[in-house]
């Protein structure tokens, strides 16, 4: 939420910050000045001498100050200098990569990089490789996915997307960013054709993957829709192991399942069916009074079953639903007892 990165895997304790490793500089041997891999601060690079670094200014009493190492501050001091002048150059472009490596959540760096990509007519295919690598490392970062979307839009080429996203999903099948990007690509470029197959493969791995079920609904609602009975039938068949010789009503099927697969979800679904029947009977007035009472009794039985046995964590809620339904049906005779609220326990 609000772009705050989840840092729950890290301790809050303020440890001594190791930052830039100074050992290498102390060992000044023959190879030192010839070593191309030795890191040089921007402030020591001749080709940057023309630029005045800009430090971060939090005033006399900084709050939530992050203690940056010299290396970190150096990169960002020069980033700030470039920003101030709105410099459009290759050296600026190269620096953004350093800045991103230090903090890939800085959305200003990404925006500036995009400005440079366009101003310098950079190779967008290379940029795709770059962003692919970054997302693989940091798949839950908002900025990197947004950046990828922008590049794909500029290229107007989604050809790598489905495979790339599938790869990310193979590491975390519920990554919200990945699914969101996938939906955008499919909708934007009309890549519906093989998506149901993809969803099915994921459901085979984990039938409880809610993201995959959502994707299934997404695809069907945007392609065939749900009105065709053949589609509904196919979906029902998908949901259970047995085949159907002739399609009974949904309610009958669910009642059959109730015997062997009595989950809170199934019972709640049944309750909703009964509630719908009662609501429709209110409007149409063509239902026998006994049938209405019977339906209400069945619905209230389900509430009791859920509250007392099958879904006790939501006991108060099921009792509340039972009371609400009774009130809606406006029946004065005492029906099933035991729908009074038991209330919450006193907190210690």
């Amino acid at each position, binding site marked *: 939420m609000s772009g705050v990165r989840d840092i729950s895997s890290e301790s809050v304790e303020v440890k001594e910050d190791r930052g830039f490793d100074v050992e290498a500089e102390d060992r000044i041997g023959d190879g030192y000045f010839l070593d191309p891999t030795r890191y040089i601060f921007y402030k020591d690079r001749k080709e940057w001498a023309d630029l005045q670094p800009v430090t971060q*200014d939090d005033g006399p009493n900084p709050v939530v100050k992050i203690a940056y190492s010299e290396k970190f501050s150096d990169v960002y001091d020069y980033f700030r200098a470039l920003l101030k002048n709105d410099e459009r150059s290759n050296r600026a472009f190269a620096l953004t990569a350093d800045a991103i490596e230090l903090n890939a959540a800085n959305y200003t760096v990404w925006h500036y990089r995009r400005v440079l990509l366009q101003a310098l007519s950079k190779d967008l295919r290379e940029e795709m490789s770059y962003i692919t690598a970054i997302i693989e490392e940091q798949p839950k970062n908002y900025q990197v996915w947004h950046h990828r979307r922008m590049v794909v839009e500029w290229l107007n080429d989604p050809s790598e997307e489905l495979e790339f996203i599938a790869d990310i999903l193979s590491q975390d099948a519920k990554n919200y960013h990945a699914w969101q990007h996938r939906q955008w690509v499919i909708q934007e470029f009309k890549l519906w054709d093989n998506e149901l197959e993809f969803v099915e493969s994921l459901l085979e791995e984990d039938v409880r993957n809610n993201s995959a079920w959502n994707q299934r609904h997404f695809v069907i609602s945007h392609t065939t829709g749900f009105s065709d009975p053949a589609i509904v039938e196919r979906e029902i068949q998908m949901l259970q192991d047995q085949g159907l010789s002739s399609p009974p009503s949904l309610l009958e099927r669910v009642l059959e399942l109730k015997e062997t697969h009595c989950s809170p979800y199934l019972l709640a679904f049944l309750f909703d069916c009964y509630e719908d029947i009662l609501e429709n009977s209110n409007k149409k007035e063509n239902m026998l009074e006994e049938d209405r009472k019977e339906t209400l009794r069945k619905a209230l039985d389900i509430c009791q079953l859920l509250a007392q046995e099958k879904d006790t964590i939501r006991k108060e809620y099921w009792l509340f639903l039972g009371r609400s339904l009774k009130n809606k049906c406006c029946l004065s005779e005492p029906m099933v007892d035991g729908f009074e609220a038991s209330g919450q326990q006193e907190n210690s």
Partner: protein
Amino acid sequence: CFYFENKHFLRDRHVRFFQRTLQVLPERYASLETTRLTIIFFALSGLDVLDALDVIDRNTMIEWIYSLQVLPTEDQANLSRCGFRGSSHIGIPYSTKGPGVLHPYDSGHVAMTYTGLCSLLILGDDLSRVNKQACMAGLRALQLEDGSFYAVPEGSENDIRFIYCAASICYILDDWSGMDIQKAIEYIRGSLSYDSGFGQGAGRESHGGWTYCAIASLCLMGRLEEALSQRELDGIRRWCIMRQQSGFHGRPNKPVDTCYSFWVGATLELLDVFQYTNFDKNRSFILSTQDRLVGGFAKWPDSHPDPLHAYLGLCGLSLIGEPGLRKVHPALNITQRAFQHAEQLQLTWRDNGGSCSRRH
């Protein structure tokens, strides 16, 4: 593991956790740089919920927050970029007064404007140094045709989170000229999933955080029952209440996570059915994520705490009436105390001729 001891709420540890958060963080928290103002909000609101704001220096905090305001330049050319920054990372020299400094890349961020205003309210500030017209102009520049919002005028992802931020800003400043409410409602409705939860946008998987944003936004706008039918509301209640496993999770078949005790809990509270959840199991779970050494709460048991989960864990406990915690306004996500301060301010603004409602 001391099961019995885990049920004990360690107030003082949490106070110290938030105090430390407000001071210095090590470099590995670099990714929080652009969102430091939200971190301040978590700490300040957390201390407020704990009734422990006396441990901080209000005035220095207020000054620092005002230094993050993007103010109009002399010629007001940057009005559509006004609001609050998340931090000083762009390199604008520290200043708590206008006029604004011209800079090609300086602009507000909608979540920072929201948490900045909330933080000022919590600190008892009267918002008199907030340039409200500029904030409204900045907000208007962020709304898209489909009703959703960008976070920043340069562009970003757009979704329901930023509608919530925008609605909160308008609510606090008592000025709805900052957004097209009707379009926002359309986007929110469009995000209602087939299973009665809300996704981040149309077609997307329903999720506890986005459901909070949807319902809280509609409540702040005063349009809950206008935007959603009773049947839809009942469906949303059902979706939310099914998220409780012990604590709450954010999506079906995902692990429970402390922050959803607030996101989903507050949504249920706004829908008048939080009373039907299981308080005991919720409390047990939240406390199982409490860090007994450094304070704060983590998303899961035996994980490291962070400011967001520390704050939302407290809010989750506040919803169930944990003794010693202030009540939280479920839509605005600040204490009722801070909320009442906001209401008082709004009364004085209206008495003074509705200065907030004037369009620039």
